């Protein structure tokens, strides 16, 4: 098992008296791809916004490489090597591609003036690296003129720019065509091969099962299941489990597997 990159302990977030996240503990290790699953409104986006520092948790602690980081914020999150592609892309659509990629960390020369040439060539390199190149746009194109898939490319290019240790992708393939989706998956594999970690949120469980090696299922703001790919065996098992938590009258399809794991752990402890 790799080094523990990031760990959340008992994170809660309430809006009014509703808990969007109601006491979640989870971790991501170096070099692993974790799939975060859950129904609409389960709290996935809220959780990753907390990881990204965009939302302040009402309770809980955040550890980076084993050390607690107080005063967690977007800047702290980025400094800790976490880059996030938000569900809504978080792009400034009246600005150019370059401006969006370098938003908040402009490449500057003396006295804060921009190094325009360097930013432009870096942007071109990034766009090429992830395969989001096109005849119709250049780094100086306005993001508002791009298609949904192209905007996604800009958001991803921004996330890989500073060689983050953990890249969080919140439903990156929603609303993408098959070919664009395939590009995103290829990108995920490239990142994994380079030894970096990914936290991937998606609603297509077959897709998530393909690319992740561990899964966390959220249900109404709590962790309902945390399971490795080996243990889950198949995407169908995961789907059946998610149907089970949505309509919990039948037996838990993963019950046998979970019981076996519990027994195994007890055995290991004894």
């Amino acid at each position: 098992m790799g080094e523990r990159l990031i760990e959340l302990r008992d994170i809660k977030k309430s809006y009014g008296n509703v808990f969007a996240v109601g006491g979640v503990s989870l971790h991501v290790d170096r070099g692993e791809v974790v799939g975060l699953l859950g129904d609409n409104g389960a709290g996935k986006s809220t959780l990753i916004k907390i990881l990204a520092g965009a939302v302040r948790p009402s309770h809980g602690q955040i550890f980076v490489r084993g050390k607690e980081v107080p005063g967690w914020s977007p800047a702290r999150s980025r400094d800790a090597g976490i880059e996030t592609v938000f569900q809504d892309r978080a792009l400034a659509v009246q600005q150019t591609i370059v401006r969006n990629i370098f938003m908040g960390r402009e490449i500057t020369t003396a006295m804060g003036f921009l190094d325009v040439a360097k930013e432009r060539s870096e942007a071109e390199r990034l766009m090429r690296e992830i395969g989001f190149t096109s005849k119709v746009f250049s780094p100086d194109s306005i993001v508002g003129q791009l298609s949904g898939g192209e905007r996604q490319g800009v958001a991803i290019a921004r996330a890989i720019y500073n060689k983050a240790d953990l890249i969080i992708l919140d439903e990156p393939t929603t609303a993408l065509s098959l070919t664009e989706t395939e590009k995103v998956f290829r990108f995920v594999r490239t990142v994994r091969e380079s030894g970096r970690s990914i936290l991937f949120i998606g609603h297509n469980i077959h897709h998530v099962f393909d690319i992740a090696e561990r899964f966390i299922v959220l249900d109404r703001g709590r962790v309902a299941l945390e399971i490795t790919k080996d243990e889950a065996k198949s995407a169908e098992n995961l789907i059946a489990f998610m149907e089970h938590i949505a309509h919990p009258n039948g037996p838990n399809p993963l019950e046998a597997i979970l019981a076996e794991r519990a027994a195994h752990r007890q055995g290991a402890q004894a």
Partner: protein
Amino acid sequence: MSSLSQPHNASIKPSPWRKFLLGNRASLGTLAVFVVMMLIFFAFAPGIFSRWPIYNSVLLTLPVALFLVVPLVFIVTVGEIDLSFPATMGFSAWIFALAVQAGFNPFIGMIGAILVGMGLGFGVGAIVVYAGLSSLVATLGMNFLLRGLIMIPTEGKSISLLGLNDTLAYKLFSSSVGGFPIQVVWALIFVIISIFLYNRHRFGVRVRAVGDNPDSAAQMGIDTKRVRVATFVFMGLGAALAGIFSTMINFTWWPSSGDAYLLPTLAAVFVGGTPTWGGVGTVAGGAMGAVIVSFIQTGIVAGGLSGFYVQFFNGLIIILSLLGHRWNQIRYR
């Protein structure tokens, strides 16, 4: 430029000219408005507009307008508005006048006025941003409040500064060289630095990002509140410079100093092609807007029409410019 992407993009790369036109369409549109306006003036009063004095009198009032309009472009871009700059201008000019009247070197007075202007800008910005008030209403309130703070102790009396004439500061900042008012040079330097600040500096880039999508900017680690407050501090700096320059050229400080600039400056920003919704704007266009507004005021009277026409033509130009920019400004969402 890498060799790999060169052939790939070559077919679509717009010519440098086209790129320049597209990138500066707002300010070029404003330039067109200016040219048309001047042609009309020429047609009606060729005798006046083909001779220098009319331009000289515009150049006398223009610098103050430029110091005000440029920072206001930053504020509108970041998604706020400021109606308190006239009082800030009057207040900092007051500090300058008091210092000079008390026998201090005018340079000291200028530094004091600039510090006070930026301090007031910070105060106004902090009230708007950290208390989460509407900038439209809060800055309106601050304008009354600060003007009141000037009026109460001075009881509406002006300060005359005839001694300024002999000082180095006056020669440097306010004399004229060969009939050309030197204030214009300083104002142009200010405009050019601001153009770079807006387009090529981290500050301007962040102002645009925050005005475009404050949530994204915050998620990308930009301290959006700080950026917004900074635009008000910049406005305070511009207002102080405007106040100092206007006091110098008149050798007098009036308690109402700055008041007359509120509406023309606001008009100049929007005539210049900066849209109201934030995220984009143009400093060069704003400067040109200030030129247009100054010319209407001076030009109409000089052109033989009575002063009663000024407001009508002011309004006409504002509406026509907005209509022109209407199809020029594309709002992406």
